[in-house]
């Protein structure tokens, strides 16, 4: 558990340092993520400590959004004034996004398997 956390924090710190000094356009955790993927591809395995921590995070991912999203209280008047636009945009966009991704992936994979 601790060893897994140490590995995650190490890659996160590496990401933050690179983001600060080399690649300021990318958030540090994203750089850390990419570096960790590359490291895993090189090592060709996920050690069990890392897997334990990652599965723990993914199980409770939702909890971590709560503090930021409670900031909704600061935007209530703005959200209420634009409620119709926001609801239509979010619902319409979700349906179109899932639909278009599904159609493209099916179309291209049927072409691949035909050949």
């Amino acid at each position: 558990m601790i060893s897994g956390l140490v590995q995650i924090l190490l890659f996160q710190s590496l990401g933050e340092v690179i983001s600060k000094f080399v690649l300021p356009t990318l958030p540090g955790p994203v750089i850390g993520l990419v570096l960790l993927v590359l490291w895993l591809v090189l090592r060709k395995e996920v050690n069990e400590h890392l897997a334990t921590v990652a599965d723990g995070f993914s199980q409770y991912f939702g909890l971590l959004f709560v503090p930021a999203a409670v900031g909704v209280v600061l935007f209530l008047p703005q959200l209420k004034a634009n409620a119709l636009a926001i609801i239509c945009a979010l619902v319409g966009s979700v349906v179109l996004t899932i639909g278009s991704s599904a159609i493209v992936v099916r179309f291209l994979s049927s072409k691949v398997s035909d050949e």
Partner: protein
Amino acid sequence: MSEKHSIVEIWVYLSGSPLFALFITLAAYQIGLWVYKSTKQNPLANPVAIAIILVATVIQSIDMPYSSYFEGAQFIHFLLGSATVSLAIPIYRGLSSLKGRSIPLIFSLIAGGLVSIFSAVNIASLLGAGSSITGAMYPKSVTAPIAMGIAERIGVSPTLTAIFAVATGILGAILAPFVLNALGMKEWWQRGFAIGIGAHGIGTSRAFSIHPEAGTYASLAMGMNGVISAVAIPIIYHLFN
């Protein structure tokens, strides 16, 4: 010292320490999980949405400013960065089961990502939303921690972005089965991938609970979408603003 006085003192002490914010956040999430389980995992009873509504109601009813709540809750918020890094593990697992499907997946990701941005921004602005709202919609199909990082970089509100991202995840988890059935999508990996692009983390955990292959591809889609969007969205945003 009167009893009332001492209760006020205890309250002042507790609400000034991180303990109170941490407690209500975890307790609200626990209640959310409990409701979710007791409704047999109905997507409408999303534990994250329940927790957000509960915490917002509590801090409003005791007149606690959001900034003092966040001072305590930032310890949970901090872990978002670590959780983002840990997405590397599902991405790696997904990569090892790609089996020559990478071309359809990459094009599907690009199509879905662009449709997500332009449909949300255009529908919202057609219906009269201002630029602070439409700006926060750009990263809404990206998993919340990366979406908030992108929001900071393009100068829109990370909070609004987080709200839109969470709402998108919940809506996607609810609507995806209907959309995919209406289109006659049969392959689990294709269904999972589309859910991961459209509904990131919340959709992914839904996909895992339906079928493991759908879940693996959903988390691969979510991770790839996050990384590509972190590069592409700031560029797209500055092209149009």
